[in-house]
């Protein structure tokens, strides 16, 4: 069956990016290390996906220090929440289409 994929957000094509977004939508904010632990990914991998989401302006980044350790907090932006919602709706529609 052929399904149009244009409603899908390119930013969420990658699984890790979608997972990051799920966590940020469910929480006020999340820090880098906790995200890394939760998703079970490497530093570099997570950083590059976060960068991509930041470029789309789907997430906001707040950098600070706790003592001497850097503490970077990520939060979903309103645009990011909207895009995430749309993406989920597209997935739902896909299921409905296939049911027909």
């Amino acid at each position, binding site marked *: 069956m052929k*399904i149009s*994929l244009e409603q899908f957000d390119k930013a969420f094509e990658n*699984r890790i990016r*979608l*997972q990051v977004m*799920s*966590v940020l*939508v*469910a*929480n006020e904010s*999340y*820090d880098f290390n*906790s995200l890394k*632990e*939760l*998703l079970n990914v490497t530093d570099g991998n997570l950083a590059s996906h976060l960068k991509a989401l930041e470029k789309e302006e789907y997430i906001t980044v707040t950098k600070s220090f706790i003592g001497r350790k850097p503490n970077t907090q990520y939060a979903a932006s309103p645009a990011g929440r909207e895009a995430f919602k749309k993406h*989920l709706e597209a*997935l739902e529609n*896909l*299921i409905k289409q*296939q049911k027909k």
Partner: protein
Amino acid sequence: MKEEDIYSELSSIRNLMERSSRFISLSGLSGVLAGVYALTGAFIAYRLVYREGSGLRLRDFYVNEPLILWPLFAIALAVLILSICTGVWLTIRQAKRKGENFWNPVSKRLLSSLCIPLFTGGFLILALIARGEYDIIAPVSLIFYGLALVSGSHYTYSDVKFLGFLEIALGLLAALMPGFGLVFWVIGFGFLHILYGAIMHFKYDK
């Protein structure tokens, strides 16, 4: 994209949203043990206050006498500390078994939302003891404990919220019936903990 793929995608999203915002390594067993400690403590307290004699139960002391006040206070404190230690230990063990870090953003939020009502209630009780208002301590402790559970339940299983409501209701009832403080404590901290701990254990601990 196949249908199964979408379903697995959706369920993984759901799972992550759940896992990142709720701390689910609370151990039901620690609830059961806390209940057992509370019952043991209550039994010892009861034996201190009442003396069993020739079919008649005689009060040896009234709770406002300093001679009995300190042992009772010590028992309550011992039960509290023992319960907290067991809870923390079993929770860490549970988190490790699930391959989760127990010190994460959710557990921090859970702890801080528990601690605010709990410490407020704790200091209020100390103030009440200092002022000699003993008969209001049982309702106050139950009510503030219930409030702590309700506020903490946002970051863990929703079952905890109902336990909180029950403790609050019990506390309000206790406020209407002065003199039965120990009875309400036994129900609230003893039996309810055992009941809820057992339910949680069989529902989630596997």
